[in-house]
């Protein structure tokens, strides 16, 4: 089956326009749990709570506020938010090509693949090949889900990969992290080099797996076999038939229906 695309459009620069689909490159495999009520195992739901009135707040009474000073907010409506959202767009517009090695990995956010759509295969292959040979990556802007992303397009294993990048103002400065520069002794340096050299391997991430996840999945499998499952109650079943007036009227009507 064809992979489900998240987005489809064209990747373009200068006079080139290649129809592509964006697909996921990673599938997080975390084990997630639901929160249940320990007394009856019903699924818990999140509700918005107003501590001031000590009451639950229905969705139509919820507005958005930006806290500009402590307890002082600027209200923002959906329409106002919409007005600053970028126009939906069908293109990944490459604005410049850069050296692949110049992309600082700290900017990498989320990886995707780009798959050629019908009619785009040839141009796609050409771009993959030329980018590979020249070691270039395309820097592009594109809009998905009402956000504008800065992305890098790479040639990878005969296909195009796209990685969303953090904007530079999101990256925290590292100036306070690194220690003051001191003298490095030649002997120390060579000793550390040697230690490192002894541990050099090819990059082979397949050797490693999330051990906690593995153990967790095993534990779940064992428990599923050994222990009875707990069951959520079938919604609330509180007795009480309704407003007395209504119930009386229904009883009266029912009597007539049955007497017919």
């Amino acid at each position: 089956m064809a992979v489900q695309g998240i987005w489809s459009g064209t990747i373009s620069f200068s006079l080139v326009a290649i129809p592509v689909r964006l697909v996921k490159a990673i599938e997080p495999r975390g084990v997630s749990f639901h929160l249940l009520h320990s007394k009856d195992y019903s699924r818990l739901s999140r509700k918005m709570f107003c501590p001031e009135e000590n009451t639950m707040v229905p969705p139509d009474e919820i507005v958005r506020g930006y806290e500009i000073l402590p307890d002082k907010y600027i209200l923002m409506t959906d329409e106002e938010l919409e007005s600053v959202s970028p126009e939906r767009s069908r293109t990944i517009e490459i604005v410049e090509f850069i050296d692949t090695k110049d992309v600082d990995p700290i900017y990498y956010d989320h990886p995707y693949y780009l798959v050629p759509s019908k009619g785009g295969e040839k141009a796609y292959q050409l771009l993959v090949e030329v980018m590979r040979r020249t070691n270039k990556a395309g820097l592009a802007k594109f809009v998905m889900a009402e956000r504008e992303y800065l992305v890098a397009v790479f040639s990878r294993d005969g296909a195009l990969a796209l990685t969303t990048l953090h904007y530079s103002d999101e990256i925290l400065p590292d100036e306070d992290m690194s220690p003051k520069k001191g003298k490095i002794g030649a002997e120390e340096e060579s000793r550390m080099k040697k230690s490192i050299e002894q541990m050099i391997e090819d990059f082979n991430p397949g050797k490693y797996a999330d051990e906690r996840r593995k153990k967790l999945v095993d534990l779940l499998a064992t428990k599923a076999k050994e222990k009875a499952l707990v069951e959520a109650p079938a919604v609330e079943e509180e007795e009480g038939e309704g407003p007395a007036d209504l119930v009386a009227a229904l009883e009266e009507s029912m009597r007539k229906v049955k007497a017919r």
Partner: protein
Amino acid sequence: MSRTFVDMARGRLPLSNLEKDLYPSYGFTKANILEYYRGIAPFILPHLKDRALTLKRYPEGVEQDFFFEKRCPMHRPAWVKTAEVPQDDGDKIRFCLVNDLETLIWVENLASLELHVPLARAGSPWTPDSMVFDLDPGDPANILDCARVALILRDLLSRMGLASYIKTSGQKGLHVFVPLNRKDTTFEDTKTFSKAVAGIMQKHYPALVTAKMAKQERIGKVFINWSQNDASKTMICVYSLRAREKPFVSFPVEWKELEDLAGLGDPERLQVVHSEAVRRAEEKGDLFREVLVKEQKLPHL
């Protein structure tokens, strides 16, 4: 993937995999599905209009996995109307609104065989325009038992001054709709009322009816599911196909006809398949039209 284009008022719409058989044991391709919805469009569109659509997609056909999609896909054409609807958890979701033939065809091209919509319109998500009784038979009870319950329910509602309308679910059950179409109705009203009705029905017909959700309570009885009267719930839209072995349709039935069919004792006779659906709709018109317009007030609330 094969691709075809269809010319519509809003331009060319690409359609994919038209030859794919989505009901393999019956033989009903994506092209047949699009053809069905094109034929039934004049009848189904008023019932989909301005309602937040939940897509139930069967990309590999009715025998394979399906998935629900509430959020209107981002790759939608620019002319697809959408509406943001607040959810229980305080979030908002942008849904598709199927307000025209083009959108219906586009949605069906996504293999959303079943079209599920709320009882309220997107612009007034807390105002149900009808109250529903979802009659669901627990084995070995069947659709004929549902019909018996529905007929009693109709009489009871009628004594309460309320007209009701019925459709098949296209699966095993029946859906009784009570049109309200008043701005002042809330889901709290419809839930309180329907729950009280279900309770009375259970009290007077304990061997036939249960108002309780619990599975063991439902064996051999008709479960009157009143809890569908909720802003967060959806119902299968009248005239929608169902993803069963055959392309059955959730189809409106006249009460008189239901009385006759209930007497025949053949549960299959109550099911309406695609071709019959279009033919009957064209012949009789929209039997569910009143559900959209008739104003009624729930008494004694």
